[in-house]
């Protein structure tokens, strides 16, 4: 609701107009304006407007008269079935309370602020709001950049050369070098220790390799490319021999060895078959 009020109020009042003038535009004897809640920025604004219509200094204003005007405004709005924002009604209730306090002298032993004190608070708030109104008006009427006063129309580019400067100490450099070399050396050793060929690995490699050879080829020859170190040699041979026997059983390869401890030869059975077909 308050938002709606604000945006409505914004429409008729262009920024550069002084709303110091607004008070003159909306005189309270214009009944149409009295109930035009949309024209006001909330209950305090309405109160300020009503106070102005008393045409006296805010410090000498009759609070009781002001309260009565406000309450009358609210009752008129209600008579017209105009829906008032909650804060207008809250203000009305508070003002009614204030009025009762002002009319009935303070009882001895009564707690809380006196009517006069409450009235002073209201007066202060009205004065402060009015001061802000005037200040805003004076502010907008100053010479303003882009309207009255101008900046350089063709600013000259400032070229910024961004440069990074790096620093590192020799110690940083050396510890970075030694650290990574050491790390890497240790990792390598671990890989070597774990270098055991599984049967599955051996079979995969054998399958891939066997297609590359047309004739009987020694197993050693197949594997020489993979046996990088003496420690690995036994595991490679063992695993691949076991794998090759399996492949023979399945009919993929043929295997032969002339005598014990002689080189083991392997050949691709399908390949060999195709070759015999081709020659015959």
């Amino acid at each position, binding site marked *: 609701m*308050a*938002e709606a*009020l*604000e*945006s409505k*109020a*914004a429409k008729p*009042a*262009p*920024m*550069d107009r002084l*709303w110091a003038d607004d008070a003159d535009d909306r005189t309270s004897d214009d009944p149409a304006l009295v109930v035009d809640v949309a024209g006001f*920025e*909330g*209950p*305090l*604004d309405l*109160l300020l407007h009503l106070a102005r219509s008393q045409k006296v200094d805010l410090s000498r204003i009759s609070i009781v008269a002001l309260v009565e005007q406000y309450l009358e405004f609210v009752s008129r709005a209600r008579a017209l079935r105009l829906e008032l924002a909650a*804060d207008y009604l809250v*203000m009305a209730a508070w003002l009614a309370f204030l009025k009762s306090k002002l009319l009935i002298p303070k009882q001895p032993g009564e707690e809380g602020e006196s009517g006069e*004190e409450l009235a*002073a*608070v209201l007066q*202060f*708030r009205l*004065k*402060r*709001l009015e*001061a*802000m*109104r*005037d*200040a*805003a008006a*004076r*502010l*907008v009427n*100053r*010479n*303003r*950049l*882009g*309207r*009255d*006063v*101008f*900046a*350089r*129309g063709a*600013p*000259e580019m*400032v070229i910024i050369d961004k440069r990074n400067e790096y620093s590192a100490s020799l110690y940083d450099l050396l510890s970075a070098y030694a650290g990574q070399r050491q790390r890497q050396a240790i990792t390598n050793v671990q890989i070597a220790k774990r270098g055991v060929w599984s049967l599955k690995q051996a079979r995969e490699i054998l399958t891939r390799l066997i297609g590359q050879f047309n004739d009987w080829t020694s197993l050693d020859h197949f594997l020489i490319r993979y046996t990088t170190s003496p420690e690995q040699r036994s595991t490679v041979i063992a695993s691949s021999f076991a794998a090759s026997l399996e492949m023979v059983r399945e009919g993929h390869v043929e295997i032969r060895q002339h005598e014990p401890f002689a080189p083991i030869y392997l050949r691709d059975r399908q390949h060999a078959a195709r070759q015999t077909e081709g020659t015959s």
Partner: protein
Amino acid sequence: MSEGSNVVPFSVEDEDGETVKVNPAARLLLAEAARMAEAIVFASADPVSERQLAQRLPEGVDVPAAMAELQRLYERRGVNLVRVGDAWAFRTAGDLAFLMSRDTVQQKKLSRAALEVLSVIAYHQPVTRAEIEDIRGVETSKGTLDTLMETEWVRMRGRRKSPGRPVTYGTTDKFLDHFGLEEIRDLPGIEELKGAGLLSSRMPPGFSVPVPPSDPDLLAEDEDPLTDIDLEELGLLTPKATDD
């Protein structure tokens, strides 16, 4: 172009028309520094801070003195050197506004509510949203504050050290620049308002009057700086920097 010629031709006279007598070498250095500062500030559309000037001028230059001299030289020219917070800018002279109307850039007009909130923030900073509402007697819509933040005249300053840690608002150097103010103390009528006790956020009369800080960037005693977490919480990535 006057390349190679570094002599400043203005005859410098004091109020009585007498030539000021100072150490000629220092005088020449200052004049040359003023000339450099002139070039730097003139080249920029935005105000240039004294810190930035000091970085770009030769070492040992008395920047405030150089700027004071320049300001005096341009005092009655068609272009004036004006101070904006701790920065300097050249701006066309105010009395020539009638001549410049043609250059006016169409600016988004602020609503009456927005202007009122702006002045409340300017005169009462640092101020929380609740305090703005107390002064105006009406709720401030989110849109109004957003609009003001968009103009870059208003910024979130910090958080009040009070329950709920509400965000405090204040104005920016852009605000000063736009309204031709050297500093917040130059706000029209601020002294009278202060004297009348109308800038205190709370009643009662005869109350103490808080003085708006002369350096609006300085956090008040009861303010905490905004943290990144705050900003995230508030849905703001970065509050726009006013000085780069």
